[in-house]
């Protein structure tokens, strides 16, 4: 039997709280610039949603605030010093093209943040994959200098990860603003799963798939290190929570969602291992959209069949009860 679905606005609230804590951490490392970037993304997302709902002749409700969480997810996937123009274009792409063009939150096909990230990756990969080191604070309108490649890139290409476990947990290594604070992400995952604000099946499937292959075909000589670093690099944890386990996209039933997440985890790990593809999980999650849609279609058919079956059973039970009553009267 299907679990009762929570209202979208409550799920949005949970996700926003976790995203804001990640943003706070980002502010700690990168200063006011990252907050300003997030602010621009959120405002752009909100305005874009408002305008497009007006065009679609729909009223803006609290459930439509999911546009702000999508925009914030995207902002946290960017470097803290991302160009503002590119960020605005990316958010507009996410909300207008990847989401509302297909009917908005009532007819979700792609994860807006994932689709927009891939769009930025294919159009501005130079700006997207260059970061400032943690604790380097750039002014609001200052041109960033001394940009470096992410720790994930270095790990993918050289197999080395020169950061202590403590640094890893606190996110003290170069990478996307919100995707490096591992401890916060783990806590967020647990909280969101417990509150059923993300798909537990999809999340666990992704982690299991990545972890299993990281142990079976390790990227480095030590299997333990391979497991550890595969999960903390390449936005695996962040994407597993906010993109793969998005309740609007992932299959509803946990066992389907588990396999959906498992295959995404496995394939993205293989792409990182064989092709050193940074942040492959985001790309793979977009490619797996038809599979997610297929699962949802299957679930709908199962639900319809179950409903028809229960109606038939109820009808038969009513007939049997009426028959027994008639017999007892006689």
């Amino acid at each position, binding site marked *: 039997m299907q679990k009762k679905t929570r209202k979208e606005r409550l799920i949005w609230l949970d996700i926003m709280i976790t995203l804001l804590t990640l943003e706070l951490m980002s502010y700690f490392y990168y200063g006011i610039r990252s907050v300003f970037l997030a602010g621009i993304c959120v405002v752009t997302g909100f305005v874009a949603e408002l305008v497009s709902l007006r065009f*679609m002749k729909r009223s803006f409700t609290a459930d439509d605030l999911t546009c702000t969480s999508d925009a914030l997810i995207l902002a946290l996937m960017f470097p803290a010093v991302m160009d503002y123009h590119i960020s605005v274009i990316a958010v507009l792409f996410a909300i207008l093209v990847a989401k509302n063009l*297909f009917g908005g939150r009532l007819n979700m096909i792609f994860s807006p943040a994932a689709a927009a990230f*891939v769009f930025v990756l294919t159009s501005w990969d130079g700006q997207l994959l260059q970061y400032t080191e943690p604790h380097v604070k750039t002014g609001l309108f200052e041109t960033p200098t001394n940009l470096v490649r992410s720790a994930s890139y270095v790990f993918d290409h050289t197999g080395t990860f020169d950061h202590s476990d403590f640094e890893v947990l606190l996110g003290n290594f170069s990478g996307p603003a919100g995707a490096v604070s591992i401890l916060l992400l783990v806590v967020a995952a647990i909280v969101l799963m417990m509150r059923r604000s993300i798909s537990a099946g999809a999340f666990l499937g992704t982690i299991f798939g990545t972890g299993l292959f990281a142990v079976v075909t390790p990227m480095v000589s030590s299997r333990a290190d391979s497991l550890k670093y595969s999960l903390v690099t390449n936005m695996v944890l962040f994407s597993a929570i906010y993109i793969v386990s998005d309740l609007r996209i992932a299959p509803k039933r946990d066992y389907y969602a588990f396999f959906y997440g498992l295959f995404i985890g496995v394939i993205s790990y293989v*792409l990182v291992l064989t092709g050193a593809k940074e942040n492959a999980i985001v790309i793979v999650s977009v490619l797996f959209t038809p599979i997610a*849609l297929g699962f949802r279609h299957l679930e709908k058919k199962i639900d319809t069949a179950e409903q028809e079956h229960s109606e038939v059973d109820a009808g038969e039970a009513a007939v049997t009860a009426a028959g027994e009553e008639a017999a007892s009267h006689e």
Partner: protein
Amino acid sequence: MFLINDLIALLAANLILSQALGTSTIFIAAGSRKNLVATAGVITIFTTVGSAAAYLIDLVLQPSISDLRLLFYTMVIGVLYAALLVAVYKFGSRWFEELRRYIHVSAFNCAVMGTLFTINKRASMDGTVFNLGGYVTAGFEAGIGFIIAALILTAAYRKLNSSKVPASFRGFPAMLVYLGIISMAVYSLK
């Protein structure tokens, strides 16, 4: 593991996702399971058999008269088109009325013609492909690629034609954008 890489390579070389060939036909194919099986099957026959014939043409055709290539390819597809219709009429007359529209749609199609020219271009750059086996394999792979792209579109077909999609974008415009985003993801893997 390398199967995954092969699959990615197949997607990257996909007719529709990377070359936009046969896009209009795929919209017909995605409409229903029957359309999908019939259209994809017929296109695969055309690309596979057509590529074998294209090999023979390319073997004989001199570079100085390479502009005649289109004419010879058209003749080959024309013969194949007529032959397929006759074969279906003779051996499957029960399904002839149903199948013939798929044959009409698939014959002189960008997907089929484009495959022949693509294989020719590939063979001129890479001599190892310039043999009958190479041509037929490439033609067959193109057909498989069409099937994969059609399946990708079929998965989202209902959603793309849903009443929740704004009327201006419902149907073909939404399908184009959907294919574009999938194509974008495939491109980013290259």
